[in-house]
């Protein structure tokens, strides 16, 4: 539920309860006051009648005039009763209609006879008054509620605008992005504070991220020189004649390890470069031609493994950096060879929409969700586990989609353009 809706609902319910409650109290008080006034008028009339009886020893003329009616009834003295007020309807003769009234009834003794005296006054006026007051109150209530709703709708929405703006920016926030969060100035302190907090947080996060990245970058860079020294020293070492076979083998192993380390380093640097979007120079590349060229390059490797390569290439041009295109095909193809078995098969299919490279290999399906993670590799793999991560980054850079699937005992890598 939106904050404004929730707020609206709460204020609406609260104000309705308050208005109903105060309305009831208001109505009862006014009703009480008006009835009290009527009763006092009736009492004055009663006093006049009593005074008349006392003075003249007879009842005054019964009758109805204006908003008042007086009537007498002879009653049995055994049925004497207490004086009391009550509501009733009576016939107003001047208006010729039945009207609501307030009456006072009492007994009075005239010359030894007991009469009941009923004085009735019309309640029409006071009822009208109450009705008008009620209507005014009701309309004020409605006007107030509508105003409240309108305020909530327009003013609140307006007030919350900076909040939604910063929210949408936070949703769009991307660590690797170069743009920072843009702060719109607002007059509301809370939002100013929120904006400042978000801005400083995003800056800090980006700063940390940059530092971390440049750390990887610099670390890999700094490692290159010692690696170059190791390599050159080894090259010098092997020139110094006479090695026993086992020494030679040891040196051979060191070479392989140093080679792996420098390739690892280069891959890390490459990843950092792609992530930082430092790859420029796009050109139009005939992908089919590139694949043909790569398969020629891998020819001997394929032959030495007796791998049967089948290709089905339609002409396809893509716009990307030549070196990255090279690297992408290289990685996918060398994976397909490396994770194959002797006498296995590789099938490359290229059309306008996608490139798929499938190979026979181990029966274990790779974990599709992890296969593109850095340093993910299965136990049998001799690689570093960066090739697919790099391939994936390259695809992301050009908004291609790289997928893995295990279909009919084949590992399929598919690039959708």
């Amino acid at each position, binding site marked *: 539920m939106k904050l404004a809706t929730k707020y609206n609902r709460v204020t609406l319910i609260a104000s309705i309860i308050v208005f109903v409650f105060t309305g009831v109290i208001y109505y009862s008080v006014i009703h009480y006051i008006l009835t009290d006034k009527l009763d006092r008028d009736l009492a004055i009339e009663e006093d006049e009648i009593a005074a008349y009886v006392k003075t003249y020893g007879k009842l005054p003329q019964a009758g109805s005039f204006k908003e008042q009616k007086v009537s007498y009834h002879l009653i049995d003295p055994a049925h004497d009763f207490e004086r009391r007020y009550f509501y009733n309807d009576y016939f107003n003769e001047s208006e010729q209609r039945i009207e609501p009234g307030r009456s006072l009834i009492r007994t009075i003794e005239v010359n030894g006879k007991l009469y009941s005296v009923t004085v009735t006054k019309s309640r029409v006026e006071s009822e009208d008054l109450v009705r008008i007051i009620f209507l005014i109150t009701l309309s004020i209530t409605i006007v107030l509620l509508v105003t409240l709703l309108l305020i909530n709708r327009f003013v609140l929405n307006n007030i919350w605008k900076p909040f939604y703006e910063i929210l949408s920016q936070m949703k769009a926030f991307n660590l690797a992005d170069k743009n920072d969060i843009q702060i719109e100035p607002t007059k509301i302190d809370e939002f100013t504070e929120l904006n400042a907090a978000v801005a400083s947080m995003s800056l800090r996060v980006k700063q940390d991220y940059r530092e971390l990245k440049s750390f990887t970058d610099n670390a890999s*860079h700094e490692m*290159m*020189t010692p*690696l*170059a*020294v*190791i*390599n*050159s*020293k*080894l*090259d*010098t070492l*092997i*020139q110094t004649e006479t*090695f026993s*076979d*086992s*020494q*030679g*083998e*040891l*040196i*051979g192993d060191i*070479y*392989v390890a*140093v*080679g*792996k380390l*420098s*390739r690892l380093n*280069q891959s890390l*640097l*490459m990843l950092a*470069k792609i992530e930082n979007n*430092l*790859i*420029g*120079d796009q050109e139009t590349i005939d992908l089919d031609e590139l694949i043909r060229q790569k398969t020629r*390059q*891998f020819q*001997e*490797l394929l032959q*030495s493994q007796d791998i049967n390569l089948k290709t089905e290439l339609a002409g396809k041009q893509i716009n990307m*950096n030549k*070196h990255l295109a*090279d*690297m992408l095909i*290289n990685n996918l193809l*060398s994976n397909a060879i*490396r994770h194959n078995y002797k006498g296995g098969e590789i099938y490359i299919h290229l059309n306008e929409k996608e490139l798929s490279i499938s190979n026979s290999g181990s029966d274990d399906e790779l974990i599709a969700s992890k296969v593109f993670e850095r340093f993910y590799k299965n136990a049998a793999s*001799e*690689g570093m586990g960066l090739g697919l991560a790099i391939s994936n980054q390259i695809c992301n850079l050009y908004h291609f989609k790289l997928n893995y699937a295990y279909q009919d005992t084949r590992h399929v890598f598919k690039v959708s353009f």
Partner: protein
Amino acid sequence: MKILLIEDESSLSESIITYFTEEGNICETAMDYKSAMEKINIYNYDCILLDLTLPGGDGMEILRAIKKINKKDGVLIISARHALDDKLDGLNLGADDYLVKPFHLSELKARVTAIVRRKSYDGSNIITFNEIQIDTQAMSVKTGDSVLILTRKEYDLLVYFIANNSKVITKSAIAEHLWGDEIDLSDHFDFIYTHIKNLRKKLVEAGCKDYIKSMYGVGYKFENI
């Protein structure tokens, strides 16, 4: 040949010098930007090996300076900066080649030899090693008077061997030279062996001596016997 090595990492430059001077080449070094600038302004070299990250200045500036004073010296950039842009910039500025650290000394030697050859013999690109004559222009090989038919890989291998004559060359250096460093062949050194075996056979059949010597575990050595 006369070589200037501009490199601030002393142990690396030491190895390079050892590898190069054994042949009787003159090899000078400059450890920083300033001394490098002095040397290129005074002397002429067949090839300048240039590191891009130097104390006191950018190696690219040295390259610009070389080209500005119209020097004919060959320039080979050696850098840990694998940055593609650097590579392109360097080549666009007139460098002859670009080698990324870490590299094999044999690869460096082969590249320098190629640069010097291109620079010094105008058009007549003939490498001679005893009875072997290689025309790098026509990519043809002669032994004595007879033409030796080699595959592309065997030809590359032979040129590489001769450039690194009397040096032990590792299998990984050969693999990287023949197939490029994009392909990780460290698990498949076997078929380097096939190429070497074929080259050796062809050379011996053509009447050459068996110059290629196998060094167990490490690699191979091409040597005059």
